[in-house]
């Protein structure tokens, strides 16, 4: 197993290795809150990071399975394409921002703007999320096992939000929707696949009222 100690190896050396010749499993120690650790991987490798990371860890990830045994700074798994990123602690703001695919699992809490502008990623948060989560979310699923802060799903397009706990004030054009059998089944599979224990029957679903993002021809005279 390849091992990198970031007290002696630079993040640049680590990332270059991950871009050039990655294989098997790889461990990273002493991350010390540094930025951009394990960014831009496009290979089926497993990376385990032992400690807290700074901004943009695991950004743009493709295929790789990345585990962070600590807290993550702003923008973890930003623009994730595929593979999975697991944060064992808490995540700072805009976790999984604009992610297009794959899965982001946060075992603790996520801060504000979790899943902002998400475009297909599945984000599962075992704890709670801060305000303005799923802002402008277009596609994918945001699962919140704890509570959601104010303005959840503001200006949401076609992403789906599941919340088990309390929801603050909903964002513009975000409404509660019916949990159909398909939604229950899909959520059950997602929770099982991501290894997050929660009773699927406790969740409520939220999504777009679709009144904001389509120009409605019937309202043309209002302008």
């Amino acid at each position, binding site marked *: 197993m390849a091992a990198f100690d970031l007290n002696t190896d630079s993040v640049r050396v680590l990332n270059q290795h991950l871009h050039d010749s990655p294989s098997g499993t790889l461990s990273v120690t002493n991350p010390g809150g540094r930025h951009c650790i394990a960014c831009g991987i496009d290979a089926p490798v497993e990376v385990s990071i032992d400690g807290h990371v700074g901004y943009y860890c695991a950004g743009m990830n493709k295929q790789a399975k990345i585990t962070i045994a600590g807290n993550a*700074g702003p923008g973890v798994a930003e623009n994730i394409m595929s593979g999975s990123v697991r944060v064992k602690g808490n995540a700072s*703001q805009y976790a999984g921002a604009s992610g297009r695919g794959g899965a982001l699992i946060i075992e603790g809490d996520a801060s504000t703007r979790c899943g902002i502008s998400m475009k297909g990623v599945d984000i599962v948060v075992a704890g709670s999320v801060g305000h303005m989560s799923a802002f402008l979310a277009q596609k994918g699923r945001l699962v919140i096992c704890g509570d959601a802060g104010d303005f959840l799903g503001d200006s949401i397009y076609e992403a789906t939000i599941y919340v088990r706990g309390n929801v603050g004030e909903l964002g513009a054009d975000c409404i509660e929707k019916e949990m159909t059998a398909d939604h229950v089944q899909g959520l059950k599979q997602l929770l099982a696949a991501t290894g997050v224990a929660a009773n699927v029957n406790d969740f409520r679903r939220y999504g777009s009222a679709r009144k904001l993002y389509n120009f409605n021809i019937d309202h043309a005279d209002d302008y």
Partner: protein
Amino acid sequence: MCGIVGIYLKNEDLYPELGGFLAAMLVEMSDRGPDSAGIALYRDPVPDSSCKLTLHAAGEYDWDALRTEMASRLKSDVKLDVLASHAVVIASAQVASVQDWLRTQHPELRIMSAGSAIEIYKEKGPPREFVRQFRLHELNGSHALGHTRMATESAVTTEHSHPFSTGMDLCLVHNGSLSNHNRLRRTLRDEGVDIQTDNDSEVAAGYLMWRLREGDSLEDALNRALKDLDGFYTFAIGTKDGFAVLRDPIACKPAVMAETDEWVAMSSEFRAIAQLPGAANATIWEPAPATVYTWGH
């Protein structure tokens, strides 16, 4: 972008290490603020009958002559320690009379801080150079705030650098930008608050000074600031006994806090806190938006 750091020691045995801790945190925040650096340090409080001021002089200055003159004019014992471009003065006199005398007799000097425990040092240039120049590793104390500035809104000078004094033993550091500072500056000047530069953070400091003067508690003043200050900010406010943290309701500007049995720390980024002993096992959290946090002895 700017970097903020704060450290508050619970264990008195660590007081001699305060400067070293602060130096490591400050240097780690160089990327966030390469233009200038500054600290507010709290140590060795003087008795009620005395006061402590930090003064700044541009260029060479005859501090010895100032000390002699002060002692004779103010009829008090005066102790004066020079550190780079700054000097800490301890006088057995009322702080208001010392400040008045300095303002009228020595307008060339800038009063950086006043109180009983606070000392403020700040200078333009990269944080690493600041740490060397002000021999931070030799400084002791109970708690301190630090700031590394990336100027976005006004000039890069020592006067525009943080921390800003906000009253007796109080100071403020800021990461962010205020959008209503021009109007607020006019209001504060009408209220008689002395604001010296066009810097937005100085307006925030002046605002707190005004509210505290009007009788608000620090917590009340900060809660009122949430209504009156428009913009993005993370503030750290140093007090005689500890420090306070406030983020605006949108909370775009980062802040992270950590606590162990030995210390409480805050910073713009965890990597500054990672420099402290025991950081890996600290309790770490992000201060919530629009919420006042305070620590004190």
